[in-house]
């Protein structure tokens, strides 16, 4: 395959940035999208040009590090996968592909396609946990029976990989899907119920402070989510939030 890549280049946070065009040839269908980016970078290095910076690590769709906005969609045209799992067979010979970073106020660009997603970590540090110390003396795991239905729902919410695709896809750059996935996971489990009130209030407050936008129920986040995190989680978080607002002191 022969392709034309139009890639966002930005030397640093203070650079204005621009789209630069790169033709690329000999791309095979069973290459992953990031294999293709590797090929481009090898060519650029040999030519003495600056390779394109992009985030990636596990290359099997679980670490959440890769983050490209491809032809206007987070993680590209395929569904329920991350960029690293996207394969070139999804594109056709002669196609032009636009590659941009996640764009959100809360995600400043570091270089080219690499952004700073530290805001998501800070939201987690404000309440995304159960306050239990490591002791070896917690109750036996089977002393807390949990209905399979709740356990499965909690698991589904917990599969969020924290990539930020939901934020990048949202017209308001809202992090509601991300935050609600963690709030839901812990709200569904008995272990998480004790701190449920403070958790949802703290996490939502931090989310707002970090500059994420509000949710207007467009649902783009759930469509683009590589782990298919459901909008039900946002509804559940809203319920948790209202409950907390009414009952907190």
């Amino acid at each position, binding site marked *: 395959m022969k392709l034309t890549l139009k890639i966002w280049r930005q030397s640093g946070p203070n650079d204005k940035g621009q789209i630069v065009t790169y033709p690329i040839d000999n791309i*095979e269908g*069973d*290459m*992953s999208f*990031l*294999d293709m980016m*590797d090929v481009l970078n*090898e060519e*650029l*290095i*040999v030519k003495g040009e600056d390779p394109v*910076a992009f985030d*990636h*690590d*596990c290359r*099997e769709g*679980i*670490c*959440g590090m890769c983050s490209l906005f491809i032809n206007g969609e987070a993680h590209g045209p*395929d569904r*329920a996968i991350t960029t690293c*799992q996207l*394969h070139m067979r999804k594109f056709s010979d002669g196609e032009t592909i636009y590659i941009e970073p996640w764009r959100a106020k809360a995600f400043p660009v*570091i*270089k080219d396609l*690499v952004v*700073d*997603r*530290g805001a*998501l*970590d800070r939201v*987690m*540090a404000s*309440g*995304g*946990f*159960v*306050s*239990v110390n*490591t*002791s*070896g003396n*917690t109750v*036996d*795991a*089977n002393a807390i*029976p*949990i*209905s*399979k239905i709740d*356990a*499965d729902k*909690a*698991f589904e919410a*917990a599969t969020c990989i924290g990539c930020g695709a939901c934020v990048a896809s949202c017209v308001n750059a809202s992090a509601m899907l991300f935050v609600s996935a963690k709030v839901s*996971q*812990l709200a569904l*489990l008995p*272990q*998480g119920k004790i701190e449920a009130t403070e958790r949802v209030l703290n996490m939502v407050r931090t989310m707002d402070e970090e500059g994420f936008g509000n949710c207007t129920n467009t649902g783009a986040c759930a469509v683009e989510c590589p782990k298919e995190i459901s909008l039900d989680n946002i509804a559940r978080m809203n319920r948790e939030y209202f409950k907390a607002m009414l009952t907190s002191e």
Partner: protein
Amino acid sequence: MSILDSKIPSGELNQKWSSYKDHIRLVNPANKRNIDIIVVGTGLAGGSASAALAELGYNVKSFCFQDSPRRAHSIAAQGGINAAKNYQGDGDSVFRLFYDTVKGGDYRAREANVYRLAEVSASIIDQCVAQGVPFAREYGGLLDNRSFGGSQVSRTFYAKGQTGQQLLLGAYSAMSRQIGKGKIQMYNRHEMLDLVLVDGKARGIIARNLVTGSLERFSAHAVVIASGGYGNVFYLSTNAMGSNVSAAWKVHKKGAYFANPCYTQIHPTCIPVSGDHQSKLTLMSESLRNDGRIWVPKNLEDSKAIREGRMKPTDITDENKDFFLERRYPAFGNLVPRDVASRAAKERCDAGFGVNTTGEAVYLDFASAIERYGREKARMNHDGEASIEIIMDLGAEVVKAKYGNLFQMYYKIVDQDPYKTPMMIYPAVHYTMGGVWVDYNLMTTITGCYATGEANFSDHGANRLGASALMQGLADGYFVLPYTIADYLADDIRTGKISTDLPEFVQTENDVKANIERLMNIKGTKTVDYFHKRLGKIMWDKVGMARNAEGLNWAIAEIQKLREEFYSNVRIPGTVDSFNPELDKANRVCDFLELGELMAKDALDREESCGGHFREEHQTEEGEAQRNDDKYAYVAAWEYTGKPSEAILHKEALVFDNIKLVQRSYK
């Protein structure tokens, strides 16, 4: 040759850890506030250690090269975590988990460490459930288990095919809580480039800020290396792209012995290589072997026809399939340990039965499991008359609930539907049992420098059993290191803050700077990946699944040449003081180029086959690994002296008081 002191406590095996804990020194809570600990790596071993140490009151500085601690490669572990809970009442016990692990490791692990691991395994599950880790459950609300290779009980806890993710997010949430409190200072996008020794003790690190490129000094009273394994020395592996040996290698160069580097695990069930451009390999969890049957065609002509696209696997009837694991190992069948399964697959492919276009793949087939589950489901639905199509659909749903994400992953990569046609799989580099030598306290041969998780060598011998890496990482971090490190730090309660202006910090930073400048000034013509790929090929061909003296000697010479070429012709674009991923890669590949040679040297020195280390000269008539316990029942710990070729071997004799050494049999 010196004798290594493993500091194993005296007493009965099952009393060692508890009586040791009762007698080691403690640091009182007020004093903990005055003590700093550096933890490099935020996977299960590093993340759990950081969280547990911060909860105890120490000031923790945690480092990861990724943009968040949640990205560490423990996240990719799929199948599960072992624990001796005996929830299934199928005969499991601490002793049995200990026994399986030592046997699975082909009798090359340290008894006392493994027993301790088995002992604390149950607490790990309790701790994780308390954190809100959503393990799979049965309808009654209790935890579910499955089986993994090398055991005859069901002791593996899991969360679909994402167990590592859920456990890591548990450790990350515990870390996040401490980050919020300020007890952990988190340094994302920072890479340790050297260890700082003051008066012979580990007192800090030099790290590169990967965003700005600046070198930064960090001090502490102890340094914990939890940076994972070195499988990426092979270039193609199931490891993440960034996984590297550098932190472990830097401490090795500063005096920590590196143990058993030749013990590498080649995982039998990975998606086969598709082409030269490939950057990494993807694992298909061992848990799939609970339900998948591994086979190649019985007839060479059928294999050939499949390779040439004239035939499909679904065209072959069961009589014409060779379920070679079930044939060779009837007692364990498809659930033999990884080293055994990998070699058996290679043997079939080498004999010409491979099924991929490359001839390097075997089938992992779910058809009979889908049918079995489908019939069960149909009976439960009171539909005894269900057609085979309906049965297969019902069965596919059950399989989807168990392994859905793995099947989806396979489908996206290979573009074939594993519900309809068998998966193609082939062995790939997955885990490294070797690592930094540590004593019972997890301290390396450098005072105050610890190594935990995959970065150390201690628990898995020559072959790790499935679902035991997660167990070891969390055991080390949650339940072992927090005790043993106190015994050392008890001497540091009056030390006070360690200044990063000490000459040792200045000197080490200057050394790191000089190394980076040397690399940047080469300005050659070949990229870092070019060298890494060549190294990987040497390693895979000669230091991979099967090794022999001739090949290993050749590999050593080739790696030396390649290293010279690297230092004269590598091209690193960009600048030192900026975000520069190519420089980061180059820093890692330098270390792989040295490690690779040491691995070959170690493999050459170990004139026996054991676990993942298979020397072609040492095999039984049936092609099984042939150990030599008289001469090689020891840990090979290498001391760095300037060049890998001149590394000095130190031996720690392995003493087995509780297990009788026998030829490992899974027949």
